[in-house]
């Protein structure tokens, strides 16, 4: 429908990926603010079956976009399919979850449609009828209010966890499901998928740990890790890390916490020398008690922590280890 807001549902093994409901929740907020109808577009292999689940949410209708060329996912046919649908129906806004897959193809769609694309949005509000999209540039240190400039469809992707899937209201009756006719016969699929697999070496299951001591870039070099290992041992906890530590191969990848690593919620989480980029925070912010030790008082990690020590970790950590040993008698 011309002027509508579309919330695009990403499928994972034929099921709506959880974050897609967050996108619907964001879409409901935007639709209410702008007085525009919200529709869901289910895109990919098995979209017809998945559409029934999405139709339970409060949306005007669910559009099904499926074609044999969409299985397995590759960017060319995905881009072509949604471009054709957008050109046919001319929605005003097209919303996505900010997933790895969305990052792989939605910028192509933006360029193909000559559309603006505000990515990784955490909130939306309307200032005098004009929607404002809030992002967190500079590794989450700052907020930016963004607006669209110029005409054309407007694309937005929402950061995981910015909206809650449970807030995506259910409709009184299931929404209408319609098949969106698209012709991909002329579309060349240039990417060839050889193998999709999980690395077998994920040996450490940090999600079961009661206490986690996580170390970040602030540790400086691999030789300094002993300091933090000692603290983890004194607390009877597991050692973990933020992405840069694993990128530098100071610790193996299976110790990594965050969006590209493990998601944990231990009783006690100590973040040592971790500034708290959003990619890390999403993996640990639901922990019971969070302690942050960092030299930068403005580091975003302090915004999720319960207790903070602003100081040199090379002084604080040994002092803490000694105190913990004394207290626990280890």
């Amino acid at each position, binding site marked *: 429908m011309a002027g509508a807001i579309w919330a695009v549902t990403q499928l*994972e093994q034929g099921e709506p990926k959880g974050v897609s409901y967050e996108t619907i929740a964001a879409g409901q907020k935007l639709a209410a603010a702008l007085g525009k109808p919200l529709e869901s577009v289910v895109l990919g292999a098995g979209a017809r079956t998945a559409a029934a689940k999405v139709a339970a949410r409060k949306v005007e209708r669910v559009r099904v976009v499926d074609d044999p060329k969409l299985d397995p996912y*590759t*960017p060319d046919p995905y881009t072509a399919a949604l471009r054709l649908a957008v050109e046919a129906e001319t929605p005003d806004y097209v919303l996505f979850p900010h*997933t*790895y*897959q969305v*990052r*792989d*193809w*939605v*910028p*192509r769609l*933006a*360029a193909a449609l000559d*559309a*603006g*694309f*505000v990515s990784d949005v955490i909130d939306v509000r309307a200032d005098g009828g004009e929607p404002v999209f809030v992002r967190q*540039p*500079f*590794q989450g240190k*700052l907020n*930016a*209010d*963004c*607006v669209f*400039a*110029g005409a054309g469809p407007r694309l937005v992707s929402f950061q995981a966890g910015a909206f809650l899937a449970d807030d995506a209201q259910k409709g009184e009756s299931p929404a209408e499901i319609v098949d969106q006719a698209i012709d991909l016969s002329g579309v060349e699929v*240039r*990417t*060839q*998928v*050889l*193998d*999709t*697999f999980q*690395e077998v070496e994920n040996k450490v299951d940090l999600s079961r740990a009661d*206490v986690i001591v996580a170390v970040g870039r602030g540790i400086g070099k691999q030789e300094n890790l002993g300091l933090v290992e000692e603290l983890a041992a004194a607390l009877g906890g597991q050692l973990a890390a933020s*992405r840069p530590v*694993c*990128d530098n191969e100071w610790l193996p990848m299976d110790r990594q916490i965050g969006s*590209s690593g493990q998601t944990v919620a231990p009783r*006690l989480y100590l973040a040592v020398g971790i500034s708290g980029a959003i990619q890390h925070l999403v993996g640990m912010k639901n922990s*019971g*008690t*969070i302690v942050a030790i960092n030299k*930068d008082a*403005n580091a975003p990690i*302090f*915004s999720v922590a*319960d*207790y*903070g020590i602003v*100081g*040199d970790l090379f002084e*604080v950590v*040994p*002092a*803490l280890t000694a105190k913990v040993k004394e*207290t626990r008698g280890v």
Partner: protein
Amino acid sequence: MKIVVCIKQVPERDARLRIAPDGRSVDSAGAATEINESDQYALEAGLRLAEGVGGEVVALLLGPDGAEEAIRRALAMGATRAIHLNDAAFQEGDASANARALAAAAGAESPDLILTGLQSDDAGWSQTGVLLAERLGWPSATLIMEIEPPADGRIKVKRELESGWFQWITLPLPAVLTIQSGIYPVRYATLKGIMGAKKKEMKKMAPADLGLDPGQVGAAGRRVEVRRLYVPEKSAEAEILQGDAATAAATLVDRLQKEAKVL
């Protein structure tokens, strides 16, 4: 093999950020800068590939005069030469406007491969590489963890997917790849490299040199505008424990025992 690597200069990770008087940008005067982290990995990946199969690496950067420092560093690491898109018209572009300029400059080089970082540490759009692929009509792949030498006009790469999944794919050249941090350890510039960088070509280009109208790039060409940049209000404030290291550590243990009851 000819490889163009797009790099961006960003504030150093620990730099104290000051909002500029316009309230929409960061005042970068005097601030320490570095090559964007995932771009460093892209450069490393490009250099390894070129060293393995033979060829050259061209560093491409859009930015003001001060970004020359990042270009020098890329040349010192081993890039053969550099292109600097530097003109007042390029300022305050969004991902779309910047990708238009980068695509024009990279495309004119007719490379086999364009590499970019996964996303920038400042704006963080995570769009540029994929945008310029579409502008050039080339295939693209993102979050690349491994690259094999090309064979029969195709390149085989390993992608990182969600939830711990990975994927091997192939795509035809020329192509654009966005590189995930950590792909290979990033080399340091040697003293010889730093000295040699001074003699390498650094070509400065303006919109007209790319066949672009100034209205297509920078602020005039953008589709998204930052209206306000500000320090976020903290939802919950951590209790900051005061005193020297020993005092703060003792207070923390006390809090964890008596208040949080987790020790």
